[in-house]
């Protein structure tokens, strides 16, 4: 990303939808400084474009009149702001203490076996990203996991296997996604670079 591009509010031909623009305008009224709206706007950008590729960050920087560097620094800090495309189904298994004590490692093994990928990986077909996640703070219902925005509590390996197989079937019908669950796929087709790390240099 070169600085010169910053002024261009439709960086690399990307532009926010009118609805997102309106939500950004409302968000800006909530904070005395524009940068306060940065994380909420990054969330909106992720919802719209699937993940925060460099061009999206440039668009955000232009929209909020912030330096590219500050937008990048913030985007890099937060794990839920995606710097690379994720699978259609983001499977996150809690393996912290309480879940470990109640069998979370069996769930990880089940996922590895069914999906054929290790934690931290995205399947080649772009359908699944598997991750171990830190305590989801529902430990009284351990073991816990999340698929996209949905929680699953008190999960047994058999239930989990059935869930994953169902998702595999759904996935074959739906195809790979553009990253963030629910991102607008009508205007943003799946990214060709699925699975590769973007260059933010």
């Amino acid at each position, binding site marked *: 990303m070169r600085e010169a591009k910053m002024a261009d509010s439709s960086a690399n031909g990307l532009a926010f939808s009118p609805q997102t623009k309106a939500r950004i305008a409302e968000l800006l009224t909530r904070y005395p400084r524009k940068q*306060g709206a940065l*994380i909420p706007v990054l969330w909106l950008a992720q919802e719209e474009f699937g993940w925060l590729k460099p061009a999206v960050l440039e668009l955000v920087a232009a929209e909020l009149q912030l330096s590219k560097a500050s937008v990048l620094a913030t985007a890099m800090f937060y794990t*839920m702001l995606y710097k690379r495309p994720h699978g259609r189904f983001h499977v996150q298994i809690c393996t912290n*203490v309480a879940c470990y004590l109640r069998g979370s490692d069996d769930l990880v093994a089940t996922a590895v076996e069914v999906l054929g990928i290790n934690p931290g990986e995205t399947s080649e077909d772009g359908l699944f990203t598997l991750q171990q996640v830190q305590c989801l*703070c529902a*430990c009284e219902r351990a073991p816990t996991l999340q698929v996209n925005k949905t929680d699953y509590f008190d999960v047994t390996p058999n239930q989990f296997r059935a869930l994953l197989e169902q998702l595999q079937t759904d996935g074959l019908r739906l195809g790979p996604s553009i990253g963030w669950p629910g991102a607008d796929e009508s205007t943003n087709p799946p990214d060709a670079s699925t699975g590769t790390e973007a260059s933010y240099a």
Partner: protein
Amino acid sequence: MPEHRLLLRTHLGVDFTKLDNYLKHGGFKMWPRALELGPAGVIAQVKASGLRGRGGAGFPTGTKWGFLPKDERPRYLVVNADEGEPGTFKDRYFLEEDPFRQLEGILLSAYATNAHICYIYIRGEYWNSKDVTEDAIAQLYSAGWLGKNIQGSGFDLEVYMHTGAGAYICGEETALIESIEGKPGMPRLKPPFPANWGVFGMPTVVNNTETLAAVPVILEMGGKAWADLGTPNNGGTKLVGVAGHVNKPGLFEVPMGTPIREIIYDLGGGVLGGADILAIIPGGSSCPFLTKDEIDIPFDFDGLKNVGSMLGTACITVIAEGSDLIKVMGRVAKFYQHESCGQCTPCRQGTGWLHAIVEKLDAGAADEQAIDLLIDACNGIDGNTICAHGEAAAWPIRSICEKFRPQLEAEIRARAAA
């Protein structure tokens, strides 16, 4: 045992996500009372209650409010709903099942501290909590309980949700403030404290969700009555969790000072399979672990402090005999390494060492000397960092090394023999 139902109202079977139901059960009754008392009167009640922060540190809430400078700058109220401490599941209850309790607490506290903007900083992974709380806020705006001239009182309050994005460290109040400002969540050096220099450089009160949810209850029963519920200096009731190796994991409410044994055995249903306790984590994994001989102490801030641990978030994790403590320690070490913001060398490097050493132990590639190495690394972190994340990593690990050494040595020998 004396279970209380002041904060936790699941037993009523009422859908408290609907404003009508909340109002029917006495909701917002404390607003006219607050107007009668005036801001100073509300603060006086909270001071009299002895309410101590439910986010983990236990700082007296009324005192904190009193630190706000008497100048003309706009004040902010920030709610710490970034629940993320491993082992904890209490704020989730308010955020998902009784959202107006927190919001009534916010209104009363904002009135008491003369704040007109409130940000609720909510954990990114809490999708359901976000939806429920956002919806509750919308219901309040349409019913005139938020916004301009609330219920004709002349008091204005805007409440906004600000969603985190997967960084545990943003639970630390100054990291949280940085995050609201749109920056990486790196804790600030204190002083200046948020009361003087908080969000956008303005005077700011940061309180935990449960702390604020207690405020309406305190006004209703009176500060003194709340204080009398608990033990001296540890007033009131507390949400407590029990998870891990117990028969009935769950969330409960007890007066401060209830013995840990009663919480585990009477409420949590005792240890799975009737096993003995190996260790417990009293209030989230940042707290030094306790042995089974330490569970007769009163469960409150001072009781835990007296045995060198902390009440923390008051959600207990029970670890039964026969468990693998090296593996448990591995989960703890991994977490703090992953969540270190990286600003201070002792925390950034030290948490990495802790994790690496424990991994070696787990792989059977280290001997008993590694225990001393771990203690040494913990000592190198302790007291040498900007925020308490460093200690949160060092204290539990050191406590395991010091209190459970024979157990660790047995596990090391077993791995060597395997």
